[in-house]
């Protein structure tokens, strides 16, 4: 088959989502962000909401999310994305608004903004990437770092007596009346990606139906921060992260 034949629409098995632009991604090999970005791009396009979606990017590895998804964005101060999204949505209720946040952003410095936006039941989607480490600043301890897990600021492993417990912020958010969906997903296998996309779509639909706050947590890897190969990272995640942060819906109000 000639190349021109192969790229005919009916022969394509995969295309880059139209909302993803051609900027080279700064994410490390094996990082989950790329796949999660793609899923968001696909869901927005499939819902036909390209011209009505506003994203709020965090401080952390995903600070440059606005370089990759071809929609309007506001870049937040560290942890403040849910407050920013609150105002965007309240002032522009016909828009579809989401935040994209890491574990440090959402569960440490931005805990107050996260909890209160969710408790008010703001009609936004919070995409939460939990890789248990601060990637952007070079692999320091996160609120979600597992017990015994080494990072740059707990080089001998997280010590509960010294550092406290890893924070299951998803479980906490599920307790709030304002959340309608809190789900924990991953993207390390094709099956996981398909399932995650379905929940992401549900979350965005909830936000437009005025059902309250939807939180989609992605248990993710950070090969650079964890100092493992991408393959080893996935295995380590399955063996260590999943038992502590089990996948599935923590809350799914119909």
């Amino acid at each position, binding site marked *: 088959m000639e190349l021109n034949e192969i790229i005919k629409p009916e022969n394509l098995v995969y295309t880059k989502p139209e909302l993803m632009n051609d900027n080279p991604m700064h994410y490390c090999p094996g990082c989950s962000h790329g796949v999660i970005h793609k899923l968001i791009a696909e869901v927005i396009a499939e819902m036909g909401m390209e011209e009505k979606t506003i994203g709020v990017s965090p401080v952390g590895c995903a600070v440059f999310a606005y370089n990759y998804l071809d929609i*309007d*964005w*506001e870049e937040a101060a560290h942890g403040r994305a849910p407050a920013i999204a609150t*105002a965007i949505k309240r*002032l*522009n209720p016909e828009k579809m608004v989401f935040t994209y946040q890491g574990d440090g952003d959402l569960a440490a410095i931005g805990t107050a903004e996260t909890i209160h936006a969710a408790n008010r039941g703001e009609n936004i989607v919070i995409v939460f990437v939990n890789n248990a480490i601060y990637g952007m600043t070079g692999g320091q301890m996160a609120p979600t770092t597992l017990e015994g897990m080494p990072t740059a600021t707990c080089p001998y492993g997280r010590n509960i007596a010294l550092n406290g417990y890893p924070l299951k912020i998803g479980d906490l958010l599920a307790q709030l009346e304002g959340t309608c969906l809190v789900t924990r997903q991953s993207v390390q296998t094709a099956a996981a990606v398909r399932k995650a996309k379905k929940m992401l779509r549900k979350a965005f639909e909830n936000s437009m139906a005025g059902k309250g706050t939807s939180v989609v947590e992605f248990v993710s890897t950070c090969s650079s921060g964890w100092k493992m190969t991408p393959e080893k990272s996935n295995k380590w995640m399955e063996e260590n992260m999943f038992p502590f942060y089990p996948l599935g819906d923590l809350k799914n109000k119909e």
Partner: protein
Amino acid sequence: MAEEIKLMKGNEVVAHAAIRYGVDGYFGYPITPQSEILETLMAEMPWETTGMVVLQAESEVAAINMVYGGAGTGKRVMTSSSSPGVSLKQEGISYIAGAELPCLIVNVMRGGPGLGTIQPSQADYFQTVKGGGHGDYRLITLAPSSVQEMADFVGLGFDLAFKYCNPAIILADGIIGQMMEKVVMPPFRPRKTEEEIIAECPWAVQGKTKNRKANVITSLELDPAKMEENNLRFQAKYRKIEENEVRYEEFQCDDAEYLLVAFGSSARICQKVVEIARGEGIKLGLLRPITLWPFPTKAIAAYADKVKGMLSVELNAGQMVEDIRLAVNGKVKVEHFGRLGGIVFTPDEVLNALKEKLF
């Protein structure tokens, strides 16, 4: 139409002026002595009439970030607080200035530092006009000295903020916020429509349409050469504001041999000082900066050769006095008189200070 005149507190009138100006959103957190702003807005329920959003945030930090979020969509949004709360907002203010977003902030100052006191003060002058948050930025700073100006500066603040895509701040104090005066209410204006916003603010995040590139509101630029360009653009804008937007008022300055310089409620007290002094045969005038940034540097410098001395009268330990000294550049003696920690001076105290320090 006949003027609508009311007797109202400074704080209350800010709320009414915001509704009447067609503000889209107010985000605040209670703190004395300015809680009446949020209380009045909640009681007025403008979401039922103009569609204005009013939200009590979980903190001042959240409130200023809500302002950032709303301003990024091209809406007219504001917040208010008092000194300790405004300290908490500094991070957000720096981001708003860095992203070149228009908004209005109101600081009804109380005594500090720390939790300080709930009594009036003007000790946030430095914080407001010299930066406050991190980085090289400026806030268009309006200092009302009456309830009428509290009303008028809401509209003026938004007009200037949108003209220059820069945050504006009303720097009031506990006296102006709490006192009741006669006020001519500003007229009602409709809120801007989405079409008007898109036409007037092409940078606004309103959903990317096919005919334009994506809009991104950010203060981040990792390339230092580009970040310097951004900063140079800010500075060029600040010079333009300094050139065009200086506002001040002169009171009995024509034949003045001595000059008081005071803003806000201090300026009201100083008017009385001028009257008493003139009764004693002292040729005293008052210059009241209305914009604290841009500062009326040239206007003050022009008096350097005309008067024997200047007294900066402030409810602080001496802040604006530094800008007056920079303006006159050593040509005339400039002294400061202030009371601290929430104490307000009497006219006699000010006059005695003038005699002691300058005669």
